[in-house]
């Protein structure tokens, strides 16, 4: 039975841990990820486990992939919000609009001590994550798409009236802006929260700020296509009625890196079947943005007069 995918069918993604061994043949990994007919790959990387920085590992996959989204599962807490925002924009630039952010909220002793801060918990942690997500979006929206005018006649490269300050001031940080990086291909990088992180990230971000949730689906490293389909199906059907439908399915499968080509075959069969069943979004064509896979519009920048970057001149 073939069912048309609903516009909200989730994007099928595979989680890959950024183990240092992974970089031995990134080209082969990229080919296998695309052969697996996925919608995206989530790159996770934990400093305490001796893994690579997830944003850099995701960027390293950009020239080796052409269609799949590259989502970095990266920390929103023990970071400089300005750097994090421009790093994610840059991932979007180098992937030509395929970047995504799966928000992680590391709040343990080790992560905090590495940056000389105290671990946060409860409402403090939740507030911090929400503040960082809001601030990142303000950084992403600090250049209008048409800010670069290259007006030779007037000698103007960039029109400051099409830029705005970030002017974020929160309990623990402030960011003045504007971004050092011009607006990225997707405008706003999609922000998602995985089941694994939902509790730590906090209700405000999950409910009100994120573009959607990712349903985590554990897959046995030896599972065949039908077992993968069954697991995804069970996970999607098991969703509670009172929560929004997931926008991403994150397959957690430890075996991929060890045998990318073999696993890609099985995953591709599973992906095709899930698409026939209308359970996941269509496979992306090369150059498809993550926003368009998620059926998210690409919003224009609205310049806030109070934050307009040329206000000093017009005041």
């Amino acid at each position, binding site marked *: 039975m073939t069912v048309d995918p609903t516009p909200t069918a989730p994007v099928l993604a595979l989680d890959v841990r950024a183990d240092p061994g992974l970089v031995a043949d990134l080209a082969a990994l990229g080919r296998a990820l695309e052969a697996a007919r996925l919608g995206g790959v989530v790159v996770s990387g934990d400093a305490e486990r001796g893994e690579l920085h997830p944003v850099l590992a995701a960027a*390293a996959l950009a020239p080796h992939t052409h269609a799949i989204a590259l989502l970095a599962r990266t920390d929103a807490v023990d970071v400089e919000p300005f750097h994090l925002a421009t790093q994610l924009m840059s991932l979007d630039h180098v992937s030509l609009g395929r970047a995504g952010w799966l928000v992680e909220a590391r709040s343990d002793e080790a992560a905090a001590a590495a940056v000389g801060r105290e671990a946060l918990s409860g409402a403090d942690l939740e507030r911090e994550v929400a503040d960082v997500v809001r601030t990142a979006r303000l950084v992403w929206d600090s250049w209008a798409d048409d800010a670069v005018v290259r007006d030779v006649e007037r000698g103007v490269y960039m029109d400051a009236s099409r830029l705005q300050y970030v002017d974020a001031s929160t309990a623990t940080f402030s960011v003045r802006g504007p971004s*050092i990086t011009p607006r990225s291909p997707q405008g706003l990088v999609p922000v998602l929260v995985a089941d694994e992180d939902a509790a730590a990230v906090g209700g405000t971000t999950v409910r009100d700020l994120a573009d959607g949730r990712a349903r985590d689906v554990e897959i046995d490293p030896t599972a065949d296509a039908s077992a993968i389909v069954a697991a995804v199906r069970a996970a999607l059907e098991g969703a509670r009625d009172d929560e929004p439908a997931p926008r991403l399915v994150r397959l957690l499968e430890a075996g991929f890196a060890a045998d990318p080509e073999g696993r890609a075959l099985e995953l591709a069969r599973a992906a095709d079947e899930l698409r026939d069943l209308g359970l996941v979004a269509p496979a992306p064509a090369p150059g498809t943005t993550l926003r368009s896979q998620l059926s998210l519009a690409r919003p224009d920048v609205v310049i806030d007069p109070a934050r307009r970057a040329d206000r000093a001149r017009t005041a």
Partner: protein
Amino acid sequence: MTSDPHPIHPSHTPTGVLRLGVFFQGVNSSTVWRLPESGDQVAWDSFSRIITTAQRGLFSAFFLGEGLRLREHRGVPLESDVAGRPDAQTLLAALAGITENIGLVATQNTTYNDPVDLARRLQSLDLISGGRAAWNVVTTDNAWTGENFRRGGYLDHADRYTHAEAAVEIARQVWRGEEIEHVGAHYTVRATGRLPRSPQGEPVVFQAGVSPEGRDFAARTADVVFSPFGDRERAIEFRRDLVERTLAAGRDAQAVQIMPGAELVLAETDAEAEEKVRWLRTQQIGPRQALDLLEQYWGRDLSAFDPDGPLPDVDPEVVVSGVTRGAGFQFEKAKELTDAWRAEAAAKGLSILEFARSRQGSRGGTHVGSYDTVADELAELVRLGAVDGLNITPWLVPGGIDDIVDHLVPRLQDRGVYPSAYAGPTLRENLGLPPLA
């Protein structure tokens, strides 16, 4: 070709090999944006085109600056120069995938990066690229830049190198898998390095400051100095000074290499190159940019002045707290500086526009001439031991190094001062640096 028979310093032996790097600025007035062939300095295609060309020319390194705050001009983002760039390391991680040999150098500030996070990112880049990463260590202390970061303007000018040295030490501990327990004046950091070593061991360390503190810092910790001294006289003087400092720091005289920044304006003949540089200055600096340049030092609106007329006869407004362009602008010295400029322009009979153009590229790193003339000049610099390489800022993106790779590199090879192949897959090998213990 003349050549000094005496070494610059008795302890220093010239390597006789010139290494080239490309410093992709893509921003500021050095980059011409008004030509039809001026590309987008943020687009992936521009980066991939220029780094591929550099690798074809056996360049040792591809070098990126760091932006921490958009340059401003009298409280408004500067409109007349190219602005905006991607995060250096994110971009370099992607460029690693389309290159095999060229080094990937990220300028990163020690003041506004958390050292453990920065070290992990650099080590990730080093592993992703198979041992081709380098860190160009820079410092700042200005509170204006700090407005984008958690700690704000926390660092005193006098402390910036003490702090930088601690940050490099922390990074090296991370890279060596050590346990870090750093208790400093500004923060306490505890962490353990957990990533493996890369094929080159750990990232190469570049350093770019030339104050006495910066030079001593380089002498103690750096592998390469990115200096502003590209002309013969100052390059020799800088080598002599740096060798002294390096020996005083207990390191070998050869331990620190020098790669000055450079701008190359080349043509078939010397006369054509002279004509080209005059044209280039008109493309880099238009009337609006000339007035913007002066306004940055005068600190006031100069739009009433004719760019084709003499320099403003009014004094600068001294705004000590109004640092709006990042490090390096000392408004307390504005009167002294603008007086000197007015005297110079009057003596030479230069208009505002002509004066601004004469300032462009005037810092000693510009080499103008035929391919053969410049090849001779550079061969002499490297045989003397004044430099180990050059870090070239192309004035056009992305085509700005095509003529260097196609016409200058073969002539340098003919003169026996340029590699004929990459020495190996790592940056350390391609810079001729000794392997790490």
